[in-house]
């Protein structure tokens, strides 16, 4: 009996899959479930200041915050109005991005649209530029004098810009749509590429017209991907902070995420956590509904492999010219214009004056001059900038490598653990950060790591979490965990491709687990690793919402630096920083393409 137990234990310990999945499970619980629990707890406990006011002990349980949020005089202002705003924004953004992204994907993958090489690059550029940069460009064009400060380009030309266009929901929705269609585009074009063109050709042979083929064959086949993109876009738009902050706060247009941030700023953490939880619940409901809709359809895309011959693609005929022009117009408005405005503004001594005499290199390389921004030198001469660049690159590199690596490991466990409880649990756990809007996620980690977390066993106090606030490690941790859904998806897809037979073949010839990993799995997963790495790199490089409440001045990143210049009223510095950031992202994307020999797919699904 004892021998049996011992052998079972030994067998368990030496099964690499078991050990790996257990370790992962523990780590994920600690990094995802515990913070979530802390968040719930914080929304249900008096903070020290509120406790004093209420005359109770700090940390005693209460539903006061929830009551205030849902059923009090301020509920309308605190919750219901912002919630309605957020829902309007998220739904509109999802609808618009889904339309733009799917149409663009079809044109690029299936039609004979000219200049495909150019478009395929240009169309994902908006994704490389932080959303708030586009908000900034929007303001530069549409700003009207009513709000005060400098004038926008149109007002300068004497064009009257109505308030509803300059600020508020319309502006927010348009800017976010231009930012978010890339998700749909990437997911749907991946799906389209994986659908055998013979399926559509059979429709042609049956005599169905183009429209009929699109509606009855192509559309149902990509629908699961479109719904997946909807989920993603919706939860991104719900949780986005910077754009509604730029384009909404000035006119008092609050969304649930800007409300969350302002509660945090006022030190009203209990309330902030409650708002975050509301956001999470909404995102979860959205996902559940979608999973119901997708249901069994999910498997369509994968059952038919590649095949057929795309040739030149579906001829657009007489629509070719108008569609091409529309594409150019769109790229112009969504890509060139924002970049151009950022660049132009960075050379403008005074904003709002669009003349040659007003151009300067001061914000790039100028020495400090007293009358400009209190003597702040040009960005490239500013030691603070150099430090920030180093910091950002360190954060981004460490994060993307760590996340891509974890992604591959989780992918390995997922793909080999299909049907096992551990595999499924890990799959679900990893998905949670996806549900939590970025700003709420930041808040969660703030509440988790601002003070050491301890529990008592008898006389001993065990510190199970140190206070990480203000450390580099915290930024890495939060970025890695938040990006796990992406990296593990790409890892899973990658490991599925590798297939267990390859590994088993090596196992049969006597290779141990480590050898198999090193000689078979890792070399084969290089491509997937790279695309996982790239996705995270771009995500983290421009990330602001997630870290905005965690960053300390010593650990600034480029987006944060640009953001603080902007809120500090020295917009040109911010433009310079944003441009440099874009160049870095673009360069890395280009380099990854060169290194891997072909087009790197930003594999989202």
């Amino acid at each position, binding site marked *: 009996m004892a021998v049996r137990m011992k052998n079972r234990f030994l067998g368990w310990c030496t099964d690499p899959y078991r050990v790996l999945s257990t370790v992962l499970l523990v780590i994920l619980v600690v990094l995802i479930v515990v913070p979530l629990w802390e968040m719930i707890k914080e929304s249900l406990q008096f903070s020290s200041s509120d406790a004093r006011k209420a005359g109770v002990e700090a940390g005693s349980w209460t539903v006061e915050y929830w009551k205030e949020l849902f059923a009090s005089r301020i509920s309308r202002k605190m919750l219901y109005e912002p919630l309605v705003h957020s829902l309007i924004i998220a739904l509109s953004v999802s609808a618009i991005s889904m339309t733009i992204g799917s149409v663009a994907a079809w044109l690029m993958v299936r039609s004979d649209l000219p200049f495909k090489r150019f478009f395929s690059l240009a169309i994902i550029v908006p994704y490389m530029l932080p959303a708030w940069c586009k908000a900034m460009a929007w303001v530069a064009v549409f700003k009207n004098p009513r709000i005060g400060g400098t004038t926008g380009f149109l007002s300068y030309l004497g064009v009257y810009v109505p308030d509803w266009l300059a600020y508020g929901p319309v502006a927010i929705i348009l800017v976010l749509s231009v930012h978010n269609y890339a998700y749909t585009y990437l997911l749907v074009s991946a799906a389209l590429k994986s659908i055998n063109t013979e399926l559509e050709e*059979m429709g042609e042979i049956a005599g169905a017209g183009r429209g009929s083929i699109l509606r009855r064959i192509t559309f149902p086949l990509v629908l699961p991907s479109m719904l997946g993109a909807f989920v993603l876009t919706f939860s991104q738009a719900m949780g986005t902070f910077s754009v509604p902050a730029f384009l909404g706060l000035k006119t008092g247009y609050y969304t649930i995420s800007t409300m969350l941030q302002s509660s945090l700023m006022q030190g009203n953490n209990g309330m902030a956590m409650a708002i975050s939880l509301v956001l999470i619940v909404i995102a979860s409901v959205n996902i559940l509904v979608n999973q119901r809709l997708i249901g069994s359809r999910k498997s369509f895309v994968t059952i*038919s492999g590649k095949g057929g011959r795309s040739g030149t693609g579906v001829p657009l005929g007489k629509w070719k010219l108008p569609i091409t022009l529309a594409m150019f117009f769109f790229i112009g408005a969504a890509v060139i214009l924002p970049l151009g405005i950022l660049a132009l503004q960075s050379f403008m001594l005074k904003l709002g004056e669009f003349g040659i005499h007003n151009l300067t290199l001061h914000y790039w390389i100028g020495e400090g001059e007293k009358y400009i921004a209190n003597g702040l030198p040009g960005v490239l001469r500013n030691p603070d900038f150099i430090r920030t660049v180093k910091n950002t690159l360190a954060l981004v590199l460490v994060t993307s490598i760590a996340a891509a690596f974890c992604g591959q490991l989780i992918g390995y466990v997922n793909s080999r653990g299909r049907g096992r409880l551990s595999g499924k649990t890990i799959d679900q756990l990893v998905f949670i950060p996806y549900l939590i809007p970025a700003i709420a996620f930041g808040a969660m980690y703030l509440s988790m790591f601002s003070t050491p977390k301890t529990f008592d066993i008898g006389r001993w106090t065990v510190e199970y979490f140190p206070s990480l606030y203000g450390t580099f490690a915290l930024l890495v941790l939060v970025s890695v965990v938040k990006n796990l859904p992406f990296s593990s998806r790409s890892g899973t897809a990658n490991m599925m491709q590798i297939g267990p037979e390859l590994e088993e073949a090596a196992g049969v010839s006597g290779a141990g687990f480590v050898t198999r990993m090193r000689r078979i799995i890792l070399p084969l997963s290089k491509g997937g690793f790279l695309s996982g790495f790239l996705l995270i790199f771009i995500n983290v490089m421009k990330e602001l919402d997630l870290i905005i409440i965690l960053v300390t001045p010593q650990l600034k990143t480029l987006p944060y630096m640009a953001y603080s210049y902007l809120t500090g009223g020295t917009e040109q510095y911010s433009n310079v920083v944003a441009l440099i950031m874009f160049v870095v992202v673009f360069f890395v994307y280009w380099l990854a393409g060169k290194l891997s020999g072909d087009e790197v797919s930003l594999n989202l699904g």
Partner: protein
Amino acid sequence: MEMKQIELKNVNKYYGRNHVLRGINLEVEQGEFMTFLGPSGCGKTTTLRVIAGLERCQEGTVVIHGETVADSETLYFVPPGKRGLNLVFQSYALWPHMTVYENVAFVLQVQKWEKSGIETQVRKALAMMQIEEYRDRYPSELSGGQQQRVAIARAIVSNPRVLLLDEPLSNLDAKLRLEMRSELKRLHRELGTTMIYVTHDQVEALTLSTRIAVFSEGEIVQTDTPVEIYMNPANVGVARFIGNPKINLIPAVARPDGTRVRVSGVLGDFVLPWGAFLPGEEITGEQKCLIGLRPEHIAAGSPGEGPEYSVLTSMLAGSETLIEAQREGERILLKQLGFGNLRAGEPVYPVFSPDHINIFREDNGKLIKRALA
């Protein structure tokens, strides 16, 4: 006279600079079972796609049932759905989001049939392929063979004049292939539809077709009945490609000898009448050539009847024995009925009838003497 169902005239197709079809000429009669046979990458699928209208040729014309459906001169191309044909892809290309019934009914729905008409017609097609019980399943819930039946049912449901099949059996296991082969034969008999069938399995081609078009590097090198292709391959390439075990190709020299032609080589000397050679290929001087001789046309004679070969191997293949023998470095394969009792190293004396041999020119590989049946 039978009606020409399909005519391809000088069809040329390029993919960029890659010249894939080089002047294809082909005529298919009504009700024929025409097979395209050839090695991988020789343009069979491309030809099929040109006929179907999925691909536009840069030169040449396609005529179906007397109507020009593709004319590259005038850039006139009839869309695939209006050519009165249907297609079965190698991958089957079943629509994964539709049930078997919906897959099969799609064509009829597009053609705006009445609902009741669709129902009966689909049921008929499913019955014909013996898959009625799967009508509400999705393709992913079917086995390979069942999927293949659905693909065929979908192709025949609208009674096309022409049915194009691109290697429909290549994904099936050996047993199922045999079954489906006779199924296809039955289908052809029952429907009377003109069929064009792509394969690189020569047994399939020989057993199914009324005629075979042999492809090589974008050209059709021979179009003939299976027997004719087997007996008189148009060139050395076709001869090598058709037949298992492979044909023997033995070098020899032919020269005029009075009113006859003398052929001499490792196989010994024999004479043929001057008229045995094809018109325009008469032997006027010394001509190097290859003798094509099928193993089953060689017998083991008694000593002195033929040249002496020494046995290399003797392999039992069911009811017959394959003997490989060698003389002066040239190998020969002969097939003997029954169980051979020859051992390696023993002598064997192959005998054959000059009537059964093909002769090919050595320089361009063309057939210059036909075998007589």
